[in-house]
């Protein structure tokens, strides 16, 4: 049951400061407008500490580590 942690972003909070990409370039890159793109899949063990650093460094606290296999909130891509 040791579910791996995933990096998630509250997209509404995120203002594109870009510290996460600075501190965790292995998992985060920035798009052409400066907003983070997260590598898919769980955080590898050796990067968990760095991910936690990135999480606490985010000026708007938009980053979170979720310990779920896959966040499932019942949404459907087409749901209006």
């Amino acid at each position, binding site marked *: 049951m040791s579910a791996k942690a995933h990096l998630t972003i509250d997209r509404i909070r995120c203002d594109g400061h870009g510290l996460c990409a600075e501190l965790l370039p292995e998992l985060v890159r920035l*798009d052409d*407008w400066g*907003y983070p793109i997260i590598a898919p899949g769980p955080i590898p063990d050796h990067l968990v500490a760095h991910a936690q650093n990135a999480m606490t460094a985010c000026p708007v606290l938009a980053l979170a580590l979720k310990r779920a296999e896959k966040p499932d909130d019942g949404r*459907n891509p087409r749901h*209006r």
Partner: protein
Amino acid sequence: MIRQRLLAGPDLSRGPEGLAWHVQRLGPPPVIGPALIDVVESSGLTGRGGAAFPVGTKWRSIARRHAGQPVVVVNGAEGEPQSLKDRVLMTARPHLVLDGALLAARALRASRIAVVIGESHRDALASMSAALAERPEPELRQARIVIAPPRYVAGESSATVRLVGSGIARPTTRPPSMHEAGVDGRPTLVQNVESLAHVALIARFGAGWFGAGTVLITVVGAASAPGVLEVEPGTSVREVFAAAGGGSRATRAILLGGYFGAWVGAGKAWDLPIDPVALRDRGLTLGCGVVGFLHDAGCGVCETARIMRYLASESSAQCGPCFFGLRALADATARIGERGSNPEDLARLHRWSQEVAGRGACRHPDGAVIFLRSALAVFAEEFANHPPHWRAESSQPRRIA
């Protein structure tokens, strides 16, 4: 084929059907509580707001929650500019929608009902308000009408919940899902008006009677008699075109599902069934039921540019990738339309439409890039060799073709 169920009864030109006529024609709705969940589940009814999610499954997951009395949000925002079916239904058969809402509330033991209606749907607002006023006192107290601003995203389910709770029609970050914590933190059912109208009939006549049901669609574009039709789910796109009067010109592409849907080349589209579940299984969507016909003189690139510009302007500007990404995508599409094809913009369209997907709180950016990618595939030839002929005369959405 055409089959009238929701729109059966007096001719639509005669306006809203009053309570007395409604009850005389269909009988009163049965008094049934949580047992209705089983009936709805076995009917196989799917949501008609665009997701085609099984209605019974959704109800059951809300009935399971214990975080206070649930709230029912009736979604008649109909923010999709091409769609008319929800407002036609609310205008003509308001009591069918209210019956469905009240039945849902009883099944889920919900105390409150909020009927969300788009501000610009004036006939629907008048009809639903008048219908509610005809209802007996307890029902009148239970339900209220909430006016949604005329924005595309206002009909997104979390945006309707936020609108009802706090007056702001913008999506929220999930989790928590609305099933867990929606309006005032209570479990909340958000259900499209058409879905609820079907419930009103299923409760009366049973899951077996429902069969495959019917679907309300809006035919737009190059058909002689565009408008709202009620059809059986197996009906083909070809039959829909014929039922909408056909057209004098050859059709080159069909927009299935409206602005959140996809372009399909005419050759492939004619035999597709107007069936939310069957289309979903083919990687397409019926969405909110818009079927648009583009005739052979229409330009796929320019139509796509117009629609992308509209979708970009309808971002609620909360999430960077959606706000900036859709604008950049719309600009690049418009540049190809205006100044002609260029490999840089084409490469950007392909890359950005992959990057933007899945990076908003709601699925507005996802819907927009699914639509764009379908255009890049169906109009690949035009995107690669587009002459500079389009002038961006306005940012207003236009009927396709």
